[in-house]
């Protein structure tokens, strides 16, 4: 039996972490991975997810996701070197057959097929057209049903929808609110193929979620021309960004999970936990969450992990602009 690293969070030492930030925080994700592997003796994660700004990408449609081909390639090669699988967030709801010729999307799929040491590279999708395209042209890549799929397909809370998705896709993202729907979760078979988001910093039962996702998909197809002011206005009054709501509301407090909530999911048999974090224009959020979720936390009379975390930060070298 493999020894469990003393630095791993003992509440979920066998968690399969699926970490946000591919093609945006690559340098930092690699730094954290290398720090854990070289100095702490374990690999903190073997899956990263993300995509650069392109018409297929949804979920996060932001300026800081713009990348050129060489940057994408360089990142992919670093992940390959470390046996880290890439899950592309090609989650645009609105993709049709005419979008399947996208050169960047296809180039990335070719790359993922050719640089796939773990055989786990995958495409997270919400569009049936893209699903058919990937299955047909890139059969070696795994398929994942996106959060957008379950949300905008009206599948929240519906076991039969999850079953249909699990039959079709290799893995299925669970709706963010369903991570607390224990009755539903108990009934899900093959729990290891279902992915749970554990650090969603929006409100529980957000009424704007489907609109948010559909507007992102619209924006991805028309980045420079899209008018997001209606969404911004609704978000500002919805409570998603209101700290008082997020911290204290009985029904709509923050959806990010407590320790007990994550443990409960793990005890139920779930292992694949997703960590979001590329929505910020800097990599601190994902690194903060990696430190608190992947590594063990100090007990009340301990401080070793505090010191180790400080040493992680001190180990990151200055970033010299090109």
């Amino acid at each position, binding site marked *: 039996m493999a020894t469990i690293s003393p630095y791993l969070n003992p509440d979920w030492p066998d968690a399969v972490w699926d970490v946000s930030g591919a093609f945006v925080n690559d340098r930092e994700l690699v730094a954290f991975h290398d720090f854990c592997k070289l100095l702490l003796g374990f690999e903190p994660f073997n899956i990263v997810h993300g995509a650069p700004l392109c018409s297929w990408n949804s979920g996060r449609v932001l300026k800081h996701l713009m990348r050129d081909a060489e940057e994408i390639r360089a990142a992919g090669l670093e992940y390959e070197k470390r046996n880290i699988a890439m899950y592309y967030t090609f989650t645009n709801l609105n993709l049709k057959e005419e979008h399947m010729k996208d050169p960047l999307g296809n180039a990335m799929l070719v790359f993922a097929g050719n640089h796939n040491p773990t055989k786990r590279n995958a495409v997270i999708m919400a569009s049936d057209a893209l699903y058919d395209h990937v299955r047909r042209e890139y059969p070696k890549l795994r398929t994942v049903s996106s959060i957008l799929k379950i949300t905008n397909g009206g599948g929240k809370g519906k076991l039969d929808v999850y079953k249909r998705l699990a039959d079709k896709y290799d893995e299925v993202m669970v709706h963010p609110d369903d991570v607390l729907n224990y009755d539903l979760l108990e009934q899900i078979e093959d729990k290891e193929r279902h992915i749970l988001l554990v650090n969603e910093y929006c409100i529980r039962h957000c009424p704007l979620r489907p609109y948010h996702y559909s507007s992102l998909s619209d924006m991805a197809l028309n980045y420079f021309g899209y008018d997001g002011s209606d969404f911004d206005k609704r978000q500002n009054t919805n409570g998603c960004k209101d700290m008082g709501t997020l*911290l204290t509301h009985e029904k709509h407090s923050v959806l990010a999970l407590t320790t007990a909530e994550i443990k409960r999911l793990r005890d139920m048999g779930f292992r694949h936990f997703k960590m979001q974090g590329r929505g910020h224009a800097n990599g601190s959020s994902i690194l903060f969450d990696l430190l608190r979720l992947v590594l063990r936390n100090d007990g009340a009379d*301990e401080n070793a992990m505090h010191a180790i975390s400080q040493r992680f930060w001190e180990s990151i070298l200055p970033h010299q602009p090109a």
Partner: protein
Amino acid sequence: MSSIIKPITAEQLMFMVDNHLPRTQWTFGGAFRYDASLGVVIENLSRSFPLRKPFSVAGCPACKWSLDWYTERRPMGLSAFSATLEKYAALNVGVMLTFDNPFITDDMLHDTYCSALVSELYRCDRVRKNSVCVANDRLAARMREICPKMMICCHPNRLIAEQNRRTPSLYNKLAEMYTNVCLHPVDATRPAIFTQLEHPEYFSIVVNDPLPRNSALRREHLRLLADIRKDPYNADLCLRRAQMVERDGWHNVDASTLRQKHTCNLTRNETAALHAAGFNHYIVQGNQFRNEMTLLWDIFRCTLDYGPELCNKSALIASSVMAAFGQPKNEMSSGLKGFKFTNYE
């Protein structure tokens, strides 16, 4: 307007700190090194979670009375210094000007630049929260000459440089001489000392000192830093410092230290004991780190409750504040971004 949003008061957020240093005053290090970032953190903490907005920031421009742990910084012009003071004043945050060099010789006591910093600190103190923090008693006396009404605090380096044994009576005596005294980081872990202090409210506690509790090299290290300050181009001194750090294992990551309280980062139990003993001013220091992110992460790690029940909400606060970094600034595009330019003041 949505019915989800309900206005709440600071009192309603007290549950977030009830089990972790409630009703305490904080000082964040890094001033005059990381001012842009500190400004963002303070501004956003004021909005998101004002319970942990700091009372003051601590730091000092490079000068004869201060030390640099890593790269020797270039001097800061007085106008830039005043502008920085004003930025913090606009946030209603004080500045603790830290002259942390304990090895001040007579010829250094009347340094013109340093004296001007102090005068300017006092002149710009419109929020009445500024202070100086010194590591040398003669320098403290000099402060009283320059600005008799300025709050004068005692820096931990004064205790690190102390040749005699550190005792409660030494601390109580210092508390009579200074407005506030910062404990030696190791003494904050020793109830035999801190429970004997007559007025805990006159003392400050550094919560995130990363050096080993058993390090015998602190004083020698400060001496080296002081020598480097006097002779910054002496590569031999820098090499000696690097070798000392390595010898003492300051950057080691070692499984055998996992359960030991190896560094002076305070545990939850230790801060609880200090708080129960009446200490209510805490410092997240930044001088000992070479990376800004170490300080920023420590600010959240130390001020927020990351216990199992509140870790998600504390993480939310940290994430929310840090989201402010990297936002578009509406600056003009530049074709020379990749090149280095040197300001001359």
